[in-house]
C-alpha cells in the first residue's frame, strides 16, 4: 500500500473530513450524495471509489466506522471524524488554501 497520495486523493480526503466534521456521523451513500449536491454536480466521483478512500482513511485513523441503526430501522455503516482526523483536516485545509491561492496568483499575474 503506497503512502504517496495523489492530489485527487488529497482532495477527496478534504471533502470527506469537512463533511463529517460539519455534519456529524454519515454513511457512505450520504457522503456521496452530499458531495454531488453541494458541488451542484461539478464534482462527480464513481460512488464506488469513495469506499476504498473511506477504508484507507479508517485504517489511517482519521475517521471511525461503526454499524448503526438509522431511521426506518435500517442498518448502515456510519463514519465519524476522530481527533486525529480533525488535525488532518486542518492540515489538508491549509494545503488546499495554499494550492488554491497559488493557482489564483499565477492566473492573475500571468
Amino acid at each position, binding site marked *: 500500500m503506497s503512502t504517496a497520495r495523489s492530489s485527487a486523493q488529497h482532495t477527496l480526503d478534504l471533502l470527506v473530513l469537512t463533511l463529517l466534521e460539519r455534519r456529524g456521523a454519515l454513511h457512505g451513500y450520504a457522503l456521496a450524495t452530499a458531495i454531488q449536491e453541494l458541488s451542484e454536480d461539478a464534482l462527480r466521483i464513481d460512488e464506488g471509489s469513495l469506499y476504498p478512500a473511506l477504508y484507507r482513511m479508517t485504517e489511517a485513523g482519521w475517521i471511525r466506522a461503526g454499524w448503526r441503526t438509522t431511521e426506518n430501522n435500517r*442498518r448502515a455503516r456510519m463514519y465519524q471524524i476522530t481527533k486525529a482526523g480533525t488535525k488532518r483536516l486542518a492540515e489538508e485545509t491549509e494545503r488546499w488554501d495554499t494550492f488554491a491561492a497559488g493557482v489564483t496568483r499565477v492566473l492573475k499575474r500571468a
Partner: protein
Amino acid sequence: MPFWSKLVNVVRPQRLDEDIAEEIADHLARRAEALRAAGVPAAEADRRAAAAFGNATSIRDKGRDIRTWTIADDFLRDLRHSLRELRRNPAFAATAIIPLGLTIGAVTAVSAIVDAAIVRPLPVPRPDRLFTLAATEMTSATAAPVERTTFSVPAYRDFRGALEGTSSIALLSPPGRAEIQLSSEPSSLTELGVVQFVSENAFEVLRVAAAAGVTTLAPGDASAAILSWDAWTRRFGGDPAIVNRMIRIDGRPLQVIGVAARGFFGVEPGRFVDVWRPISAFDPGASTNRTFHWASVIGRLGGSATIDTVRGRLHSAYAADLAMRMNPGGAASGGGELRVVPLPNGVADARRMLIRPLTVLLAIGLLAALIAAANVASLLLARASARSTEMAVRTSLGAGRSRLMRQLATENVVLAAISGGAGWLVASMALPALAAQLAAGREPVRLAAAMDARVLIACALVTGICAVVLGLLPAYATATNPKLVNLRDAVPVVPRTRFSRAFIAVQVAFAFCLVDTGLAFSFSLKSLFAIDTGFDAGGVTVMSIGADRALPLPLVHELQARVGAQPGVESAAVAWWALFDGNRRMDRVVVPGRPPAEREEVFSRVSPNYFRTLRTPLLAGRDFTAADTEGAAAIPTVVNVTFARRYLSQPGDFVPRERTDAIIGREFLRAADGARHQVIGVAADSYSGDLRHGPDAIAYFPMKPPRWFTLYVRSSGDLRPIVQAVRREAAAIGSGAHLIETVSLDSLVARTVQRERLLATTSGAFALLGLLLAAIGVFGVLNYAVASRSREIGIRCALGAPPAALVQLVLGHVVRPVAAGVLLGIVATAATVRAASSLLFAVRPIDPSILIATMALFLLAAIAAAALPLRRARAVDAARVLRS
C-alpha cells in the same frame, strides 16, 4: 484500533467479506430508492445505481486488501498450502523431516546435558549472590605458587568473624563415599552413598529450606544427619516418619533430623549428595589444625554487600592466618593472596572434566544439524526446479518475486518447525540414555538433566538456525537463477547452478569430517583398550575391606591365606590401595649421590603373592615374604623397570642388554620421611592409574597395619561363595572389619576410559547419521536429475548410447563436487583432530589408516546412493518418454 481489526480480518475473512458486501448493498439500495422516488422504474433504477457505483467486485477486492493485514493473510495461506503439500507427499516429508529431526534432537539432548552440567546455576534462591574463596600461596621463594580452593576449620572461623554483619559463609567438605544403612541394625543392607560434612549454618547460607524436619545442625550434635530429597524418596521411599529415624553411616548410628528441599543436591553439579553431617563429626583434630585445608568456603553476599566488601573484610583475617601457618613465630616466608570468586554455578570439579568432551560433542552435533539442513535444502532446491511451472503460473496471475520467495520461504520454515518438534521428541527419548551413560563410571556424574524451558530455548535456537538456512535458500536460488520462474520451458530444468554443486561439496566435506572424527575417537578408545596394562585383569576381583581401627598384620595375612585356600580361588593378595581407584600414595625419590628429583612416584604397599595374583612378571630378584616388614632399617622394596631406569640405573645396566638383576641391592630414600629402601626385586612395568600417559614408576613395599585395605582375588567359577567366605573371614577378624565393595578389575579399568567411551559412541552415532544424510542428499539430487532428464536419457538410449555414457550423464555433475568435498573434508578433519587432540589417544591429525577407512566408507555410501538412480536411468523407456 485499526491494527487489531486488521489482524482479526486475517483470521475471519468471511466476516470482512460480509461486512463489505452489506455496505455496498446498502449503498446500492439507497441509490435505487432515490431513483425510484424520482420516477424511474424499478429495474432501470437498479441498473443505473449499479452503473453509477462502478465495478463492485474490484471495489470489494480493494477494500479487502486495505482492511486486511496482507502479510499475515499471505502467511496463513502459505502455511495451509505447505501443510497440504506435505500431507500429499508423505515420502518427501519423511526424507526431509527425519534427518533434520534426528539431528536437532541430538543437539538438544547434548545441550540439555551441557546445561545441567555447566551452565545452569545452583537450584537455590539468588545464586548470583553466592561466592567462594580461593587462595594462591607460595610455600617458599623458589617453588611455584600453589592454588587451592579449600581452607582449614580455624581459618574459616576467623573469616566468619571478620564478615560478621555483612555476609555469611559456610564450610563444606568435598563429598565422599560412605556406606549407608537404612536402619540402625548393624547387619542391615548397606549401600554406597555420598556424604558431605558442612558447617551448621550451611543450609541457611544457601537458603535451602527443609522439606521435613529442620536443616539447621546444632553445633555440638555430632550424630545428626540431614538427608537429600533424592535419597529420601529413593532409599527410604519418602517415609513420612523420617524425622528422628536412626540410620548408620560407616557403621556409626546417626539420627535424621531433617530432609533438604526438593531439587537440592549439593553445591557440585554432577555429584549428588545423599547425607549431610556436621563438620564437628569429622576428625576432631581437623577443627584445630590450621594446615589441614580440606573444605571449601561458600558464602552469600548479604544485603548491599559486594565482592569487594567481602574481600576487604577478609584481608586482615587471611593475612593473620597466613602468618600463623608459614612461620609460627609470625614472619611470613612466602606471599599469599585471597580471592573472592562469584559462584552461581557451584563447585567445578566434576564439571571441569566434562567441559571439553561436551563442547566437542555439541560442536559435532551442530555440524550434523547443518549437514541435515543443507541436505534438506538441496532436496528442496531440486524440488523447486520441478515446480517451475507452478511458479510461472503464479507469476502470470500477478505474484511478484517477493511474494513467491515468501511462499517458498514459508514452506521451508514450516518444514524446519515440524522437524524441530520431532527433534524435541527425539531429545526426550535420548536424554535419559545419555544421562545414564554419564552416570556409569568410577566417578559417576549424576546430573539433574531435564527437558525444561532452557533446553526448549536451545532447541528453538537450533531449529531457528536450520529454518534460516532453509528459508534463505529460495531467495538465493531465485536471485541467481531467474529461469526458476520461467513459463517458457515446457520441461523443468535441473538447476545446474554452482549453488547446488557447492551444496553437495559442503555436505560431503561436513560428513567426511564427522565420519573421520568418529573413527578417530573409536580408534582412540581401541588403542586405550589395547594397552598392555602390565597385569592380567581377567578373573581378578577387587574387594575393599574396612574396619573401625587399624588391624594387626598377622590377621590380615591370615584372611589372605584363608581366602586363597577357597575352592575356585587361584591366588589372593592384599594391598593398601585398589588399582585405578584414584587413590595413590605419591612421594619423591632421593638417590644418594644424585640431585633430588622434582617429580613424585607411586609408592604402593602390597603383600606377598601380589605379583603372582595380578600376573605381573618379576624380572629379577624375589617376591616379598612374610619375613619382610616395614620395620627393617632398609625396607625391602620391589621396583618396576621404569622406576629402575629413572633412578637406579648405571651405565651398562640397560644398554646393550637389559640386565635388571644388576639393580638388586641398590638403595634409595623416600623424601617425606627419609626412610631407606633396598631393592630386592624388579617387576615388569604396569599401570596403576591413568592409561594415557605411559606406565608409572612404582616402588612396592610391605604393608603396615591397615584400617582399610584391598583384597585381590584371582578366581574362576562362581564368585558368590568366595564373597561369602570373605565376609565371614572379615567378620572373624573383629574390630568391625567388613566387606565394603566388590568390583571386577576389568570394570575398574573400563571406568577410567568412560569419557573416551562416551565420545566414541556418541560421535560414532553422529558420524553414521552424517554419512546417512550425505548419502541421502546425493541420492536425492541424482534421483531428480534422472527424473527431470528422462527425456534426454531416452533420446540418447534411442540413439544407441552405451551404458557407460548413461553413467556419465547421471553421475557426471556430482563427481567433481564430491571430490572437492572430500578434499575439503580432509583439511577440516585435520583441523578438528588437532583441536580435539587432548581427548584423543595415539591418533595423529592426518592418520592414514583412519583416512583410508573413511574413504572406504564413503565409497560404499556413494555406490549405495547412486545405485537406485542408475537403475532408474537404465529402466527409462525411450519410446514412452519420447512420446510424452
